[in-house]
């Protein structure tokens, strides 16, 4: 390749125990990072060390161990906020990105939306960006409208502008990078247009924060949701970033310990941000692990991470296109897409593809990818999806292509 990738996947792989070759020399070709990433040893060690050396419940503890636990927990929050240029007070830990979006739908939407108000989502949303709004719309009388996609897998921006201008849109809830099409949506531009019409914007950044420089301040949105486990961190922790002035005006989502300033028999007062939205014991070890993941990503450099993704996607688009009859969904320009490559073969169902390539140790996902409205828009029930990350190289793409040829030959036997 003429433009050498700035990431050295062979070097990176040494940090991931699960990706090490077995004694027989077989190697896992993991192409499902859009579902969850593998975890570097630095993350596992940070969590292990926390449990072994600093485990205590956070906040309010007077003894030194509790202070140490609190410091490590809050260090995780600081690392996350720094990574995405978010205000610390508006960086809230949730269980996952789904809970982060639900938090906004319930704590903001339920109290704000009125009958006939419009929540704009898109046909390329993950179910987590659709269902919470449908639930809250049903309770408030608001309406959920879907921005359509064009045949090449981009958003129909004319429809968006027309709807913003003609309907009482109060919220635009939109994915930054599609988990199926790979499309990178121009979210900063959409935020500016939505704000001009008085709508708030929530960006689902689950597929962008792990893969490219993302700035909450730069995008200018009101809320941003993402999850830890897709960005080298553990499961069980997600992030909602919100503009503090909006979060301050919202009522809590879940009630309980940690989120109060005072509890009396005649009522309670809420804690300051971000604790107001973190009821109960938070994901402490998970914050420690996520903090380590942020540091790991920063040390690689997210510009380099993105350059590596574009490099691999360019290679994969070319390699897959050479397979007879293979259809790739989403933009063909690697600069306009992420590393999730959904494809379809006329003679092999996605389930069979995933089963057959697994025989060659190639992990790809098959199904609707929690995006059934998008599947309907594409006119398919399911796709196979290969998605890359920092530990993948062009050998992995070659392994996929070889496995697809072998799968086809096997079915034609």
């Amino acid at each position, binding site marked *: 390749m003429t433009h050498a990738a700035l990431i050295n996947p062979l070097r990176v792989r040494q940090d991931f125990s699960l990706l090490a070759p077995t004694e027989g020399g077989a190697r896992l070709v993991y192409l499902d990072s859009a579902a969850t990433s593998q975890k570097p040893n630095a993350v596992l060690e940070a969590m292990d060390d926390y449990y072994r050396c600093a485990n205590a419940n956070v906040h309010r503890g007077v003894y030194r161990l509790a202070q140490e636990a609190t410091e490590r927990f809050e260090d995780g929050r600081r690392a996350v906020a720094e990574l995405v240029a978010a205000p610390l007070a508006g960086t809230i830990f949730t269980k996952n990105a789904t809970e982060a979006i639900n938090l906004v739908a319930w704590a903001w939407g339920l109290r704000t939306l009125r009958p006939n108000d419009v929540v704009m989502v898109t046909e390329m949303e993950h179910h987590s960006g659709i269902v919470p709004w449908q639930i809250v719309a049903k309770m408030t009388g608001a309406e959920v409208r879907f921005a359509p996609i064009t045949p090449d897998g981009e958003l129909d921006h004319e429809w968006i502008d027309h709807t913003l201008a003609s309907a009482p849109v109060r919220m635009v809830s939109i994915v930054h990078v599609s988990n199926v099409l790979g499309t990178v949506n121009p979210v900063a531009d959409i935020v500016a247009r939505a704000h001009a019409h008085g709508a708030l914007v929530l960006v689902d950044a689950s597929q962008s924060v792990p893969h490219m420089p993302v700035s909450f301040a730069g995008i200018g949105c009101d809320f941003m949701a993402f999850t830890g486990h897709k960005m080298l961190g553990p499961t069980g922790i997600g992030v909602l970033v919100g503009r503090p002035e909006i979060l301050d005006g919202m009522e809590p989502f879940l009630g309980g310990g940690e989120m109060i300033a005072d509890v009396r028999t005649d009522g309670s007062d809420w804690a300051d941000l971000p604790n107001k939205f973190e009821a109960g014991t938070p994901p402490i070890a998970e914050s420690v692990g996520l903090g380590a993941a942020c540091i790991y990503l920063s040390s690689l450099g997210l510009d380099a991470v993105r350059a590596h993704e574009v490099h691999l996607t360019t290679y994969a688009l070319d390699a897959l296109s050479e397979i007879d009859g293979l259809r790739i969904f989403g933009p063909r320009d690697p600069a306009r897409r992420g590393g999730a490559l959904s494809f379809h073969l006329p003679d092999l169902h996605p389930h069979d593809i995933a089963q057959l390539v697994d*025989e060659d140790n190639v992990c790809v996902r098959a199904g609707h990818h929690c995006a*059934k409205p998008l599947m309907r828009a594409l006119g398919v029930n399911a796709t196979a999806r290969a998605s890359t990350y920092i530990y993948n190289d062009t050998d992995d793409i070659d392994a996929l292509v070889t496995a697809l040829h072998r799968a086809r030959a096997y079915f034609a036997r």
Partner: protein
Amino acid sequence: MPGLDDLYQQLILDHYRRPRHRGTLSEPTIEVDQQNPLCGDELHITVRIVDDQITEIAHAGEGCSISQSSASMMSDAVVGHSVADALAMIEHFRRVMHGEIVADETILGDAIALEGVAKYPVRIKCALLSWMALKDGLINGTPTAQEDQ
């Protein structure tokens, strides 16, 4: 791929490539839709029942090789049988898929080829999709069965 030969037997690929009873009956006695929520596969089954006998059955929709061949094999197996016999076959197949009993070829016909699917937990749902759809249709959609309930 020797490891997969148990799963993808020739008979399964044959039913997948040349599905029997594919299509939709007009004015069926029973009509049932089933979805596999895991993968989005959809199945539409129509059945004609005359004097408690399944005289015709057809399946339409999209799915993987396992779900499609299973629908084809099931249709072969139940056509010409009474509703009660078909329900017994379905129960036999369900128990085979869950590894509870050994498959009986005299009951299942070609569908015996699906026995190997029981070793692949994720694919059992694919194999069972059409059988559960037919069971649902026979129990909830047959006028006589409804009277019995």
